[in-house]
């Protein structure tokens, strides 16, 4: 998210008062958070291309837990909302609690929040469904094409190895074919990236679903797919509700 803008006062206070801060996010955000607490350790060091991210996430959790067990006041500062599409923050809190330490999460401002603001989308208008792109491909999901569909981590869509930094066109081709069950190739979708600094504009690129295969994606790209169908009335429920109201009078 954006340096300076997207931090809750309580999160800032926890960071300022911590003995040690572990940080996961953009290097500029890291510099910003270092101004709040100079004892900052980057969690980025645990990533490596070709390395299974299950190991990476365990190492992140271990690094934090080692300091917790040493009696330190530890903050894990993760960009966005730490509990949204993010495994290590949930895991470290569960483990810390299980070992008897006080641990809790404070909410942050997620990519999702920025998307709603920048694209002028209200998730409540017709409903919205969020999936991690790879999970959406690996498992059979019931898509509601009359609601928004938001796919996260599209830059690594279809990565079974959990070790890639990007997946290519062949993977996206499969994702598009899967989406074609509900959305034609001409359907307009948005590629969204919230800027890291306030002097940059957000990336809001409307393309056709078919063009998604060739699109430039990064690890921070989120895809918004608007509904392809109108809401269908559930007449039998409407009728039953009408009967209730009629009987109440």
């Amino acid at each position, binding site marked *: 998210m954006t340096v300076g803008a997207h931090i809750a006062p309580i999160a800032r206070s926890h960071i300022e008062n911590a003995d040690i801060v572990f940080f996961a996010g953009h290097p500029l955000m890291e510099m910003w958070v270092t101004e709040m607490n100079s004892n900052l350790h980057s969690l980025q060091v645990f990533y490596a291309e070709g390395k299974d991210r299950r190991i990476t996430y365990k190492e992140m959790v271990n690094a934090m837990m080692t300091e917790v067990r040493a009696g330190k006041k530890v903050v894990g500062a993760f960009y966005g909302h730490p509990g949204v599409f993010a*495994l290590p923050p949930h895991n470290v809190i569960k483990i810390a609690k299980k070992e008897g330490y006080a641990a809790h999460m404070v909410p942050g401002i997620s990519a999702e929040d920025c998307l709603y603001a920048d694209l002028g989308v209200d998730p409540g208008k017709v409903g919205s469904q969020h999936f*991690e792109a790879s999970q959406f491909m690996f498992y059979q999901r019931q898509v509601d094409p009359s609601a928004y569909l938001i796919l996260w981590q599209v830059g690594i869509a279809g990565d079974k190895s959990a070790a890639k930094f990007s997946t290519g066109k062949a993977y996206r081709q499969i994702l598009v074919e899967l989406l074609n069950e509900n959305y034609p190739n001409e359907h307009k979708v948005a590629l969204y990236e919230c800027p890291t600094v306030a002097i940059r504009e957000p990336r809001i690129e409307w393309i056709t679903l078919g063009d998604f295969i060739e699109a430039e994606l990064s690890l921070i790209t989120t895809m918004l797919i608007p509904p392809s169908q109108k809401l269908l009335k559930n007449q039998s429920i409407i009728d039953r509700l009408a009967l209730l109201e009629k009987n109440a009078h």
Partner: protein
Amino acid sequence: MTAITLLEKLGADASFDPSLLSAQDKETLEDIISKANTFNAIELISVPDEKESEEKEPEEEKEPEEKQS
């Protein structure tokens, strides 16, 4: 002001007008932005194998069993 303080102000202070940045400040900002490496934003894993569910989550704490009355 350091580049990061400037960026913080740009993000946090609605009355801070970016068009009033001096040429030198703009240069400092562009410099720090262009030098910043990209980062790995991926923090969630979905792997369709059996091992995944064990590796993925530490064991859920069990709810205390309901007493039969």
